[in-house]
């Protein structure tokens, strides 16, 4: 009978039921959205942050790590193809760079060659005046190198190589600012295969590289980097992986702040939703004071009336949670697609969170409504006063 009463009460009071369900569904949708973002946020945001640049550097294990920045003597050839393959498997971004020393206007200059697309993906934070080079014969100069040599975008230059005595003509298409030592260098594009060919391979018009290294953008923070290093070690790639700790620490801090911000936003949203739900449930109860008074007049104990209202709230909460979960998942898809360009997977944990919060809020509001309803004397309610 209780099921019948609650069912009919919900189905035949369409306006107030729809209104209550709408507020509950909104609450559930927001919980689902935030739960989905909280669960996926770290992964997605970490992935997103990975697009902001490298978080590890790979160099030959026979070469001192500071040889990366100051190319010195060539070490044993690392297996760059293996590095790239392992990086791709780990969902990491990678660019292999080769360092040479040439002369420009009679002064030595560090020249780095790499695949232009891979370099672009790994250095999106570079501020480029002009444009990045796209084909052989073009180049990109660091801001400080441009200042030293008087390089302007669009100008043509000849870089001379000492061994063998050759030269490369290059047209500088842009000057970049990176905020680090790369600003002292000139970057020339080569194909990806040329970049990974190793120290012994000569690039058109250039001598063999003095040093090679790779920049990695590994998801999963330090753990991810450690894992990749172990894999490379197992495959005898002949390289060592060094995490760029400052960047990793910065990422972690950023993620923590974003999570904290999300938690505050969720709290605020939940508080507002709870108020909305409470108002709707209280309105529902207030509208039925005579009905509840009649129940008492017919001999229903107060406990049974509270149970009836809580049961009704629980049914509404569950229905609201289900509808809200669908809506929230849809919203979460939209948000993550727009922000992270990745769709989220609907998760049971999100549904359970939405269900727990929505039913909890509905029960609290229903309890408060019952308490208020039972304060009204049935005799007065039935007199319509």
């Amino acid at each position, binding site marked *: 009978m209780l099921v*019948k009463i609650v069912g009919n009460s919900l189905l035949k009071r369409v306006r107030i039921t729809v209104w209550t369900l709408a507020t509950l569904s909104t609450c559930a949708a927001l919980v689902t959205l935030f739960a989905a973002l909280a669960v996926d946020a770290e992964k997605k945001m970490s992935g997103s942050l990975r697009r902001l640049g490298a978080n590890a550097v790979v160099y030959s294990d026979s070469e001192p790590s500071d040889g990366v920045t100051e190319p010195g003597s060539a070490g044993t050839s690392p297996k760059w193809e293996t590095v790239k393959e392992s990086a791709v498997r780990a969902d990491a971004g990678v660019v292999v760079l080769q360092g040479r020393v040439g002369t420009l206007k009679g002064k030595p200059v560090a020249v780095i060659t790499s695949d232009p697309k891979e370099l672009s993906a790994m250095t999106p934070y570079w501020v480029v005046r002009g444009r990045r080079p796209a084909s052989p014969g073009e180049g990109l100069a660091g801001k400080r190198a441009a200042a030293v040599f008087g390089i302007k975008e669009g100008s043509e230059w000849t870089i001379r190589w000492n061994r063998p005595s050759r030269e490369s003509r290059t047209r500088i298409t842009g000057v970049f600012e990176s905020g680090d030592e790369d600003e002292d260098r000139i970057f020339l594009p080569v194909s990806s295969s040329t970049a990974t060919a190793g120290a012994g391979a000569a690039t058109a018009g250039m001598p063999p590289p003095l040093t090679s290294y790779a920049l990695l953008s590994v998801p999963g923070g330090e753990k991810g980097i450690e894992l990749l290093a172990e894999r490379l070690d197992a495959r005898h790639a002949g390289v060592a992986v060094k995490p760029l700790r400052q960047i990793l620490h910065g990422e972690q801090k950023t993620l923590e702040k974003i999570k904290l911000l999300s938690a505050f936003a969720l709290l605020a949203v939940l508080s507002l939703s709870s108020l909305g739900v409470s108002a709707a449930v209280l309105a529902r109860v207030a509208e039925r004071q005579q009905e509840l008074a009649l129940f008492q007049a017919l*001999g229903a104990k107060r406990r049974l009336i509270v149970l009836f209202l809580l049961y009704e709230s629980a049914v509404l909460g569950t229905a609201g949670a289900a509808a809200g979960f669908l809506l929230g998942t849809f919203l979460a898809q939209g948000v993550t697609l727009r922000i992270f360009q990745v769709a989220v997977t609907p998760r049971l944990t999100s549904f359970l969170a939405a269900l727990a919060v929505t039913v909890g809020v509905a029960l609290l509001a229903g309890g408060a409504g019952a308490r208020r309803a039972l304060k009204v004397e049935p005799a007065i309610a*039935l007199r319509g006063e």
Partner: protein
Amino acid sequence: MEEAAVTFTEVSKEYPGEVKALDGISLRIPRGEWVAVMGPSGSGKTTFLNLLDGLDRPTSGQVRLSGTNITGLAPAEAAVFRRENIGLVFQQFYLIPYLTVLENVMLAQYFHSMVDERQAREMLDSVGMGHRASHLPSQLSGGEQQRACIARALVNDPGIILADEPTGNLDEANEEKVFEIFRELHRGGRTIIVVTHDRVLGNLAQRRIVLNHGRIAENTYNGNGTVECTESDRQPTLSSGKC
């Protein structure tokens, strides 16, 4: 002396900021009696009824129903007592709008003990509403709603029927149907207390109590002029029919 169905002893009811709705009423209603409580608006009729059904409590005095002092009952105990002993009939019917007529009757069974659809249908048949069992209250006329309300009041077989203006919202034809139901209930030995403005209904009752300003102004047995006066001197008289 046979146990009374209802005993009021020095019962007063005062609402905050208002005059006394009932002022020191004492009376005794034997089992099986049909009493009409009459009087002008504001005379205390509804308060009288609410004290009888335990939905309200007197400011002072004692109300006993079937030997139980209901003024001393906690709300939960009063609810149990009400569902076991009292059937309520309302002027506004108070049928639950989203339940069918049958479900409305079964609702009283549900609060009492357990639902019995067959018994509920029989009760509807007894008030001539069997054919409307599956209708919603909004699909019924006022008279039909009142009969459904009476069926709900009777379904748990209460000893006392309390009716508040049962014909107040009915036309003449429907009034007559309700009168007939009450006659039948009275013949069946139930105690019936009806608050009414309706003189016809008042005359149909065995006894007529007229309230005025919260006091019993008239207490008359229809037909033989017997009067039991309990208003001011608390001494019954058997003469004029007036206190």
